[in-house]
C-alpha cells in the first residue's frame, strides 16, 4: 500500500509539471473531461474544474471545494473607499491561475479529527508503531496539544458546524499538510491574493455584492448582527462564486506576513500570484482576512486586513513556552481558516514552506512542548493513517 502510495504521489508530481490530463487517465476529484451540464465550473487547460467534496481523514465528514476562475486581481482597495485603512494599498495587479477553495470555513466537525490525533499519536508512540524518525519526519505533523481550558476556544459553543477557531497559523498549516498527505491531494492555506480574489468574486467594490453595506447582513456575520459569537458556517448568502462567510463569521488565516505598509513591497504588476506573496520572515505579525462576528462591518470589506500578533494572542496562556498550536485569548475566538487546492500542486520541495514551521522558534517551541512537556505529539501523516486509527478504535484483548 505505501509503495503504491509513493508511486501515486510521484505520478501526481509529474502531473504538476504538465497538468494536462490525457483523455484515458482517471481524473482526480474536481476535474471533469466533459463540460458539465449544470453547476459552476472553470474551463482550463483542456479540462473542467468542478466542485467536489473532500473527505476529512478518518472521519465521516466532508467539505466542499469550489473552483475559482483565474484572471487578474486588483489587490487592495482604492484610497477613495470608505472605511479604508492605510495597509490596504497601494493597489497591485496580480494574475492568478484557477484554483479550488473551500466553500465554507473549516468547522469543528472537520477540525476535531485533527485534534484527536494527539491522543492517537500518543498510543502509536506507546506501542512503538508508526515511529517518526529523522528519515520520515518530512511526512510527519505535530498534532495540537489537548486543550487545558476549553472555555476560551469554545466560547461560541461546540456545535460541530461552528467554524473551528483559536488555532495558530502553524496549526492550520499542519492541518493542511495532514489532509494533503493522507488524501494525496495538495492543500494549503490561501495566499492573501488568492483569498481576496475568491472573496471579491470579480467585484472591485468594497464588498463582493457592491459598495453599500446594506446587504451585508444577508452575507455576513459581523459585530452588528452576530450577538458577539460565531455562527454555524454557510448560513448567510454565498458570493457570486458560491463561497460562504468570506465577509465575516471567522477571520481566516492566509500565508502572508502582515505588512503595515500594505503592498508597497510588491511590484505594480501584473505579477504572477506565486510571486505576489509576502512570505513571513518572523513569527509576527501575520495576516488574517475576511472580517468576523466580533469585528465591525467595515472590517468585513474585501480588502480589509487584520494583523495577528502572536505574543498578544497568547497572553492568556499560563505556560511558558506558550502553545504553538492554540491561542488562549478572547481575541482568538474568531480566528479560523479555509483551505485552497491549486490546480497545479508544487513539487515536493515547495511544500514545506506552506505546511511546516517557517521560522525556527515555532519548531523549537513545538519540540519543547512535545518532548519536555508531553503536550502535543508528532505522528506520520500518510494514506495508511486512517486504517491505523481504525485499528486503535477496535477493542483489543
Amino acid at each position: 500500500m505505501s509503495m503504491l502510495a509513493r508511486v501515486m504521489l510521484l505520478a501526481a508530481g509529474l502531473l504538476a509539471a504538465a497538468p494536462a490530463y490525457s483523455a484515458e487517465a482517471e481524473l482526480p476529484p474536481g476535474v471533469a473531461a466533459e463540460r458539465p451540464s449544470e453547476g459552476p465550473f472553470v474551463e482550463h487547460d483542456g479540462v473542467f474544474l468542478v466542485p467536489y467534496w473532500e473527505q476529512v481523514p478518518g472521519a465521516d465528514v466532508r467539505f466542499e471545494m469550489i473552483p475559482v476562475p483565474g484572471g487578474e486581481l486588483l489587490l487592495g482597495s482604492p484610497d477613495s473607499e470608505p472605511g479604508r485603512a492605510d495597509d490596504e494599498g497601494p493597489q497591485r495587479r496580480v494574475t492568478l491561475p484557477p484554483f479550488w477553495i473551500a466553500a465554507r470555513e473549516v468547522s469543528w466537525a472537520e477540525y476535531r479529527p485533527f485534534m484527536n490525533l494527539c491522543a492517537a499519536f500518543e498510543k502509536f508512540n506507546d506501542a512503538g508503531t508508526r515511529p517518526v524518525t529523522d528519515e520520515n519526519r518530512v511526512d510527519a505533523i505535530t498534532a495540537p496539544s489537548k486543550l487545558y481550558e476549553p472555555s476560551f476556544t469554545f466560547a461560541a459553543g461546540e456545535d460541530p458546524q461552528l467554524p473551528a477557531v483559536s488555532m495558530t497559523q502553524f496549526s492550520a498549516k499542519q492541518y493542511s499538510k495532514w489532509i494533503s498527505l493522507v488524501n494525496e491531494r495538495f492543500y494549503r492555506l490561501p495566499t492573501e491574493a488568492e483569498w481576496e480574489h475568491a472573496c471579491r468574486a470579480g467585484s472591485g467594490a468594497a464588498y463582493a455584492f457592491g459598495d453599500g453595506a446594506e446587504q451585508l447582513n444577508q452575507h455576513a456575520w459581523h459585530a452588528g448582527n452576530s450577538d458577539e459569537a460565531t455562527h454555524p458556517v454557510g448560513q448567510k448568502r454565498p458570493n457570486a462564486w458560491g463561497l460562504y462567510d468570506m465577509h465575516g463569521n471567522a477571520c481566516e488565516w492566509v500565508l502572508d506576513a502582515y505588512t503595515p505598509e500594505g503592498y508597497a513591497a510588491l511590484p505594480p504588476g501584473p505579477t504572477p500570484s506565486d510571486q505576489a506573496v509576502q512570505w513571513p520572515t518572523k513569527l509576527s505579525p501575520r495576516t488574517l482576512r475576511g472580517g468576523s462576528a466580533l469585528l465591525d462591518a467595515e472590517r468585513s470589506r474585501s480588502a480589509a486586513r487584520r494583523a495577528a500578533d502572536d505574543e498578544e494572542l497568547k497572553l492568556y496562556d499560563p505556560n511558558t513556552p506558550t502553545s504553538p498550536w492554540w491561542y488562549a485569548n478572547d481575541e482568538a475566538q474568531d480566528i479560523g481558516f479555509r483551505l485552497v487546492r491549486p490546480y497545479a500542486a508544487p513539487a515536493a520541495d515547495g511544500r514545506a514552506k506552506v505546511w511546516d514551521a517557517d521560522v525556527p522558534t515555532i519548531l523549537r517551541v513545538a519540540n519543547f512542548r512535545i518532548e519536555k512537556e508531553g503536550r502535543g505529539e508528532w505522528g506520520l501523516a500518510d494514506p495508511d493513517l486512517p486504517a491505523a486509527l481504525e485499528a486503535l478504535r477496535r477493542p483489543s484483548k
Partner: protein
Amino acid sequence: MTDTSHTSSPDRRVFLKGAAVASSALATAAWAAPRAVGATAGVHTGVDETLRIGLVGCGGRGTGAAVDALVADKNSELVAVGDTFVDRAQDMLEALGFEESVADRIKVSGDRVFSGFDAYKQVIDSGVDVVLLCTPPHFRAEQFEYAVAQGKHCFVEKPVATDIPSLRRVAAACDEARKKKLAVVSGLCWRYDPGVRETVKRLQDGAIGDIVAIESSYNAGTLWRRTPKPGAPPWSQMEEQVRNWLYYTWLSGDIICEQAIHSLDKTAWLLGDASPVEAMALGGRQQRTDPKYGHVFDHFSVFFTYPQGQHVYFTCRQQDGCTTRVEERVLGTKGTAEVLAGRIDGPSAWKYDGPKPSMYRVEHEELFRSIRDGDPIHNGDYMINSTQISIMGRMAAYTGKTLTWDQVAASEQKLGPAQYAWTDIESPPVAIPGVTKFA
C-alpha cells in the same frame, strides 16, 4: 489594592476559627522549624530597589509564572530556580530563552540552579525577595512554610495542599506571613481577571437579587502525560509518579483539587467566601482507566450546601469526546448570570465590555505593586478555604458518604510516602465509593 483581595467575611472567620482549633497541635510542631534570619525581612518600598525572584517548580506553569513576574515588575530579576529534577530546571532555562522580552533579567548563574527534594530550601536561601511556589501541590505546605519562615513574599500556585494536615500547616504559615507583613498571592487567578471581578462584584451587590444556587462546571478534556525519552532507562515508580503527578492523588489532590478548584473557588467567592456546610458527591473513573493514568478519577459531581441555604451543583470531568464546559451559572431571585462570560440576565441585564488583560499578568502586577507599596496582599484565607472545599468534594466522592465541613476539617489522613526517595513505591488503589473509608 482591590477589595477582593482584602475582604474578610464572617463566614471566613468561622472557617479560620475551626481550622485554628483543629490545627493547633500540628501548627505548633510545624513552627519548631527554623525562623527567619532577619526579623524585618520582606519590607520593600519604592520602585528603585530590585526585587529578586526565586522559582520553585520549573514546569510550564512555573516558567510561565516567572515570565509573568518579570513582565509585571520591570525592576525584578530571576536569580534562582529549583526543581526536583535537574533536567526540568535546565529545560526551564531553555524555555525562558523563548521569551526575548525578559531575557536581560534572567540572572540565574549555574550555582543557583538547584535540584532534588530540598531544592526549594536552596532557592529560598539564595538571597531572594519573592518566591514563586509552583511544584505539584503535595510539596506546597512544606515549601510555603519554609519561605514564610525565611521572610519571603510568596506567589502560591493552587491548590495549596492535597490533604488536611498539610492545609493546617499552610494556614499556620499564613498567620505567620500576616504577622510578618509578607505578601501571599494565590494562583487562583480568576480573582484577578477584571471581567470576572466586575461580574462577581455586581452579583454580590445584588444584581440578580439573592443568590439561590450556582451551577458550576469544569468539564474539560484529558491532559498531558510524560514518558522517558526513547532509549532512556525506565523511571522508578516514584519518578513516574512525580513526573506524571496529575494522576496521583497524593501529589495533585485529584482533578477536582488540581484543576477544578478554579471553579470551586469562584463559587465560594460568589457566596462571600463562605465554607460549605456539607457535601454529597459521586465520582469515578470510566475513560482513563489504564494504570498509566495512576488512580485519580476522571469525573466528579458534588452538591455543596452553604450556610445560608444556597446550593452549589458542581461537576468536573477530564474525558475526551464529551461536551466541554467551564462556567459558573448563578441563579438568583431576580435573574441569572454567567460569570466567565461576564453576563447578567434579568431586570439588571448587563454584559462586561471592559479591558481584558491577562489575569496571570494582573496577579503579578498587583503582587509586586503591593510589595513596593508596603501593603502586601494576603490571599491566604480564600486559598485555604477553596482548597478545603476541593478536598471535601474529593473525600465525599471517594467515600460515597455525605461529609460535613467539620468532619473534613478534622481529617488526619496524610497522603504520600513516608519519605521521598527514588524507589518503586506503589500506586494507591482507585477509590471505591462505599468501600473507601473516610480518614
